């Protein structure tokens, strides 16, 4: 379970949000909606340890995680809006690089695990391609597999359907549902009301819940 308490974020003197409270239950799929520039991306960056917050508390399963922006664990997996795959590595290596180098998983085992992740995402035949050889939707699934390979406690997506057509959007929805059935807790930032409604258990409206 993820709990965010009284989280406040400022850029210089600019308050982005103040005393934000949010709870995501184990295995829940939560969508975060809200107008552009309100602070959605900022929030998941703080969760992932990429941005410092000014005050407040974040706990995962009742354990506090630091919010100074210096954290470097893989507790929260992040699917970036533009994926940020490593262009110099194949799909397979993109997925196994962190398990092998960070978690010291033996290469063979990491490969097996990556292959089964790719299979579950319908991407097994793409293992040896480089990111530039993939479509947007395929890149996204690699990004998902790469994050999942580190067994994060929570998987967060930044606008996973922006730039995707209707059928790709449905595929993403399928992936989210599959992961949900496997118990993965997911937080999804989206502008896409239709998508939010079909995948999520609950929708968090930033504009309504956040004091500036």
């Amino acid at each position, binding site marked *: 379970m993820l709990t965010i308490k009284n989280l406040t974020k400022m850029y210089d003197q600019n308050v982005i949000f103040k005393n934000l409270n949010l709870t995501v239950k184990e295995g829940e799929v939560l969508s975060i909606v809200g107008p552009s520039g309100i602070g959605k991306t900022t929030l998941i960056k703080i969760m992932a340890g990429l941005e410092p917050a000014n005050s407040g508390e974040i706990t995962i399963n009742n354990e506090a995680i630091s919010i100074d922006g210096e954290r*470097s664990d893989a507790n*929260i997996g992040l699917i970036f809006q533009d994926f940020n*795959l*490593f*262009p*110099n590595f194949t799909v397979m290596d993109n997925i196994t690089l962190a398990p092998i180098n960070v978690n010291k998983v033996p290469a063979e085992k990491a490969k097996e695990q990556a292959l089964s992740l790719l299979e579950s995402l319908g991407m097994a035949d793409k293992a040896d391609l480089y990111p530039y050889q993939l479509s947007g939707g395929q890149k996204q699934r690699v990004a998902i597999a790469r*994050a999942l390979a580190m067994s994060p406690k929570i998987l967060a997506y930044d606008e996973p359907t922006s730039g995707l057509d209707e059928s790709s959007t449905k595929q993403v929805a399928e992936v989210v549902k599959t992961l949900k059935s496997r118990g993965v807790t997911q937080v999804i930032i989206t502008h896409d009301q239709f998508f939010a409604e079909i995948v999520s258990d609950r929708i968090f409206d930033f504009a309504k819940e956040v004091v500036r």
Partner: protein
Amino acid sequence: MSYLATILPSLLSGLKMTLGIFFLTIIGSVPLGIIVSLGLKSPYFTIRWLINGYIWIMRGTPLLLQLIFIYYGLGMIGVTFPRFEAAIIAFIINYAAYLAEIFRGGLQAIPVGQYDAAKVLGFNKFQTFFKIILPQVIKIVVPSFGNEVINLVKDTSLVYVIGLGDMLRAGNIAASRDVTLMPYLLVGLIYLLMTAIVTLLLRRSEKVLNTWR
């Protein structure tokens, strides 16, 4: 033909000097250039200021002057180096400055997203740099790096000024002794051969690096 055979040994021993300076400069200036380019991103103003000053001086004055300064100039104030060492020092610190600028450009071209992705996956700074960032920087800088390497092949001839016997000097001696331009032509040919080899190797590495984009 038989004349060429008589001067070839002296040219080849000059070539050994030329190649020695060439390779030692590369071995020394590449890592130094990387370190200097990372220093340019230091959070400490003084370090950035010093490094910028160093790059400015190295790129803003002739390598010939730097050579003379390190061998004769420093000699005058009691800091003496043997000729060869003086040449190597001058070449390494000069080329490191140019390479640092090239690496800096390459580093700047890497999107922040690459660092973010690495951090979220738990990589430390060291792993991030060597596994993820550096290979991408290398791909970006190979063409400009190649230019510098070709310049270096030719710049090695500057060491004549501190009395080192490189290939050009050997050719020069033979030409004025025998009053013929053959040695010059031969020396030119050998430089062409060296730059051709460098060019070929660079094309190869660009091709290898093009397996990904």
